[in-house]
């Protein structure tokens, strides 16, 4: 018994040693093999580029654009193989974080702008793309200022797939049924319309609030109005304002009024984003607040022909309806540790140069972040697409979403706090205080 115990403990100790050194060695092995890889490539030898993306659905225009360009590139460069890793938005976020923890980021991946990509940049996981965007004039294809959201210390780290704004999509037919002649321009009108729709047995508004960002996006648009213009969160971050500011309290109060008026579908907090959008697309709700990235999919849906858009109304007489929630798109980034850094950069350069052109052909160019040559109307874009394009042309200014501005921990508190408003009436002041405490604790 004694001896066997001794042996056992020896074995455990040995096991620990082996496993620990094994774990320790792994990193080193990886880095050396990476070095070898980048040194020995350069000639036309076979290269596989992993392309992690968030377009898993073959029916969407974004999927088609990505595959069309990549396949063309593989045809032109027989030595290059592009391997797709297509995931849902949320899955991809999670997978990338896990990969980042072990420093195994795929050659090309997708990140979200500003605060959401900062951690990755700070950890040195993403390759600066300055040299690459200067090639073939890629930099000049982007709309003015858009790359700022992806730049840190004068380096560009990612290239966006779109440039969107938050708008209210609405079903014209249902508005007619409820006797509403024009889209609302004030928040009081909006609530009156909600009641009129509800009286006709129509679900006034749909939101996929299980995915908490959807409600937050709407809430932030209310805040953009009650604050009389953009910049509330940056003022808070700079210490010029607190969340206890009347603008914030009013915004919470307004959202609660909307909820109390019965604007949203039953069980909103257990419906996810996709289900919510399908609900609207199949003509079961009259209004849907979403980013313009949804335009293409809504346009091609069952209810597509009846859908229009309107600007988010002013709230309590405050705000400018040409200010929008700005949503610079998810963006393509390259891993700093990529084994084939140069080849990957060449591919992404080609990809982004083709992006506006192919998107235009596939009728999805309205929300592209690059300049698009061509006449939308002549190319047969629908009236919805044209309406969206018109709104976008008149954008005066706006704010980024909460989680693109604040750090992840504060954002999470915000997101659940707003979700809670959909199921429970809370004193707006305590919501404000909850935000302020979270902000101070996570500075």
């Amino acid at each position, binding site marked *: *018994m004694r001896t066997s115990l001794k042996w056992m403990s020896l*074995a455990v100790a040995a*096991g620990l040693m082996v496993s620990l050194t094994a774990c320790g060695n792994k990193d080193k092995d990886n880095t050396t093999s990476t070095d070898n890889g980048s040194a020995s490539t350069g000639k036309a030898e076979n290269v596989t580029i992993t392309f992690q993306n968030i377009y898993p659905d073959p029916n969407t225009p974004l999927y088609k654009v990505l595959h069309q360009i990549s396949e063309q590139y593989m045809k032109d460069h027989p030595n290059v193989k592009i391997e797709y890793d297509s995931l849902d938005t949320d899955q991809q976020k999670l997978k990338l974080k896990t990969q980042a923890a072990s420093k195994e980021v795929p050659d090309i991946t997708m990140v979200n702008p500003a605060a959401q990509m900062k951690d990755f940049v700070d*950890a040195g996981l993403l390759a600066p793309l300055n040299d690459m965007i200067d090639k073939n004039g890629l930099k000049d294809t982007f709309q003015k200022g858009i790359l700022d959201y992806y730049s840190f210390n004068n380096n560009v780290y990612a290239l966006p797939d779109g440039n969107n704004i938050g708008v209210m999509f609405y079903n014209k037919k249902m508005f007619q049924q409820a006797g509403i002649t024009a889209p609302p321009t004030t928040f009081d009108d909006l609530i009156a319309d909600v009641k009129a729709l509800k009286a006709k047995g129509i679900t006034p508004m749909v939101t996929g609030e299980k995915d*908490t960002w959807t409600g937050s996006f709407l809430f932030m648009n209310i805040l953009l109005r009650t604050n009389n213009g953009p910049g509330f969160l940056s003022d808070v971050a700079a210490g010029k304002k607190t969340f206890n500011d009347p603008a914030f309290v009013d915004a919470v109060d307004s959202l609660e009024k909307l909820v109390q008026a019965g604007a949203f579908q039953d*069980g909103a907090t*257990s419906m996810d984003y996709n289900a919510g959008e399908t609900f609207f697309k199949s003509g079961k709700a009259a209004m849907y607040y979403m980013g313009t990235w949804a335009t293409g999919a809504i346009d091609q849906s069952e209810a597509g022909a009846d859908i229009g858009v309107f600007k988010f109304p002013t709230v309590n007489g405050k705000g400018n309806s040409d200010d929008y929630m700005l949503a610079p798109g998810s963006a393509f980034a390259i891993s700093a540790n990529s084994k084939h850094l140069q080849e990957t950069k060449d591919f992404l350069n080609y990809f982004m140069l083709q992006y506006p052109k192919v998107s235009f052909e596939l009728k999805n160019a309205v929300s592209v972040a690059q300049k698009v040559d061509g006449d939308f109307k002549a190319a047969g874009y629908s009236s919805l697409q044209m309406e969206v394009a018109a709104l976008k042309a008149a954008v005066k200014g706006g704010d980024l979403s909460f989680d693109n501005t604040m750090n992840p921990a504060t954002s999470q508190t915000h997101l659940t706090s707003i979700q*809670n408003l959909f199921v429970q009436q809370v004193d707006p002041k305590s919501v404000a205080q909850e935000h302020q405490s979270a902000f101070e604790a996570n500075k």
Partner: protein
Amino acid sequence: MNALKVPARTIALFVLPCLLLYVCLVFVPIFFSIYTSTFDWNGIGAKKFVGLDNYIRLFTKDAVFWPAVRHTLMFAVFSMVEIPFALYIATLINRFVKKPNFFVTSYFVPVILSVVIIGQLWKTIYNPASLGGMLNQVLDGLGLHSWTRSWLSDKTAAMYALYFVALWQYLGYHLLIQFTGIQNIPSEIYEAAKIDGADGFKADRYITFPLVVPIFKISIILAFIGSLQSFDMIMVMTGGGPGHSTDVIATHMYNMSFLSSKFGYGSSIAMVLVAVCLVATVIINALFNQVERKIS
């Protein structure tokens, strides 16, 4: 232990490969988690050593943690209460059903189904009536309109709705375990008892229950630990919402680690979960040893 008189080093040699694997897969991650739980770390960038700060914050300042612990423990209690029920059904099946395989298999079906499917299934059952939720329509049909609600979006009802799905899913699992336990009791004992006049309920009380206690214990421990780790079903059905009202320890840990990017803090929650599991297993074992001694 060493009845075969095999040299200790031979035993060690044979134990080693499995032990190594076990250590690598179980202990290394646990120690790594203990290590990371002492850091302020976002999972990607630089770590900052903070000692026990994460734990102190968790126990004193985290408004989500204690309700999550309560939900988790309630979950555990409910799933343990279910086991006597499973045992009861198992004895009934054993006594009254001639070819019990079909019954037991049908009870077992939900266990094989993926949790995601179960979650989606019950989500549609729980849906508000306006979205065609079955439960609400049935209640409406019975004239119980005041009982209808959007089960998963109601702050008080949501957690109970989730408990019920888990109980429904795992009833068959525990039933199967108990049933096998009962079948393994030699029939001679019952025959002997019958001659002595112990039949029906009496036989259950004095033969089945005492002999099935070890199996019962396994079921209880499995149920307890399984419900402490409950995560996937909650993620699918509510994601911890609305407003944290269905968060359990595991979902809170996930939200903190991956959504709030506080890996160190998440690790400290994980360590609490490990500790609770270990302590609970020890307590349950001790309790059952007493019970077994009393009964037999």
